């Protein structure tokens, strides 16, 4: 046996208990989502079940108003991402390409807002949205998600913008292009991958947000997915767990796949905006 093989066996053995615990909830989710309702509360509890009931998913879709919550989540996440990016791109460009008075203070401000958590401000935010008449309005979430994500998007974009060589723009200026032309024709096309990755992470953050959605959305037709699923569980005598798990599968799996695929890019912006 080569030493790499021995090492691999040893490492997998060390990691396996942790992996079992990590994969356990996924197993619970899938096994419950496809199990007949009558077998939810069998005694003694067991992993096994008699048949795969895929109809659980379609039943759940109708009974829990999954479609409505899905549309709300899509609207909020897409709008918040667009607002955050439109405001962050120029700011990140300025951070990457210019020296200006107050740049250091602005960096500190960004770090501060990045660390600020919605829950600490939730009461103040609720009062603010009351005053603006935006409670029960999905746009309150669009504004808050955009604001809370902006520090992250600016870091992320700035670190990519820094890696686009300045020479390209300078060469364009030499050839007589204006700053605006060089920005639109040369810089922005090169920055598209960075913007796409940043947009996806902002989307996922907004998609997953719970506290603000729980607070601002008071009527069930305005619920986003996390609140909708939480509402199926909290304060009920009879929880339809097979529906809840089916909804959880649909709400998380697509996002989880995209996230796992792009996760290696995340390090650039998250927290490590400044750690090199």
């Amino acid at each position: 046996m080569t030493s790499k093989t021995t090492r691999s066996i040893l490492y997998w053995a060390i990691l396996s208990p942790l992996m079992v615990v990590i994969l356990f909830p996924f197993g619970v989710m899938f096994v419950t989502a496809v199990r007949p309702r009558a077998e939810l509360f069998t005694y003694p509890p067991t992993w096994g079940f008699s048949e795969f009931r895929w109809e659980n998913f379609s039943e759940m879709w109708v009974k829990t108003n999954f479609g409505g919550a899905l549309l709300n989540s899509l609207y909020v996440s897409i709008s918040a991402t667009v607002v955050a990016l439109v405001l962050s791109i120029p700011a990140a460009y300025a951070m990457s390409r210019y020296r200006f008075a107050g740049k250091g203070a602005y960096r500190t401000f960004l770090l501060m807002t990045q660390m600020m958590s919605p829950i600490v401000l939730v009461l103040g935010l609720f009062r603010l949205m009351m005053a603006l008449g935006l409670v029960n309005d999905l746009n309150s979430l669009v504004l808050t998600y955009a604001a809370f994500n902006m520090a992250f998007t600016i870091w992320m974009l700035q670190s990519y913008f820094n890696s686009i060589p300045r020479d390209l723009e300078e060469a364009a200026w030499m050839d007589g292009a204006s700053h605006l032309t060089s920005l639109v024709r040369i810089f922005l096309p090169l920055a598209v991958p960075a913007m796409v990755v940043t947009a996806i992470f902002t989307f996922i953050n907004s998609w997953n947000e719970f506290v603000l959605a729980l607070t601002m959305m008071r009527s069930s037709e305005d619920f986003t997915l996390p609140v909708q699923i939480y509402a199926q569980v909290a304060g009920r005598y009879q929880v339809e767990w097979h529906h809840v798990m089916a909804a959880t599968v649909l709400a998380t799996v697509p996002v989880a796949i995209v996230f796992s695929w792009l996760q290696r890019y995340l390090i650039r912006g998250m927290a490590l905006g400044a750690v090199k």
Partner: protein
Amino acid sequence: MANRIQKSVPLMMILPGLALAVAIIGYPIFDLAWTSLQDVSRFGKLTGFNGGENYAEVFGDPLFWESLWRTGIWTLAVVLGTLAISMPVAMILNDDFYGRGLARVIIMLPWAISLTMTAVVWRWALNGRAGLLNATLMNAGIIDQPIEWLATASTAFVVEILVGILVSIPFTTTILLGGLSSMPQDAYEAAVVDGASGWHQFRYITLPLMKPFINIAIVLNVIYVFNSLPIIWVMTEGGPANGTDILVTYLYKLAFRFGQLGKASAISLIMFFVLLAFTMLYVALVSRNDRDDAAPEEEV
């Protein structure tokens, strides 16, 4: 003139985003500070200053102190537990072995799922009658009766801490991996030549060089964990009988269940200052690593 326009360009680019951040993140802080000094009706109407009575009420409330104490335990246990597991995991993932790509994907999975959903699934998995954790433990012969995991506060709190650790591992491992991958290899080679054992290499080379990354992982985790609501809120809502309340769940109940807005804003403000202190610590740590901000950053 042209020069002045030139100079204002970057400010104009920053301004719109700054305005939104000040309105959404800055304004509520002032509103909370203002509210916390007044009598407030259930419906949020301010009815005059009461000279710090809200704060006196908070500090005279045993539930506040219990929640504060539990917040301390929650934060300390989750942050240290996470670090203790993430360090060896990061060192393994930094080494070369068969199936490393797959191992990374699995270890990072909890990060890809929202805390709310994770907590909903665990709430079901821990169900006292039919939960599949009980099924697994009974099959394995570890227990012979189902356990009501979430029915008593002390067990529920321990379980919540373990879930908290589980979901914090991916982020922490990622930060530590970032540090490990930038380690100078020649230091290890020199140590091997000098006959240093594995433990000595870890103790005298890895650990000191990793210190800045460990510090940042600790401070960031403290910030995230100390005000994380979803796990505890979804699994037990701070119950049974306030037995798993931490400051954020207690704050949320005061504000949105009991309508004690003056008291709730006082707690919010106290938490804001704790958060601010840790954030300043973080800013200090980060700026130590990063003095020259004009220089283009290197590839990560």
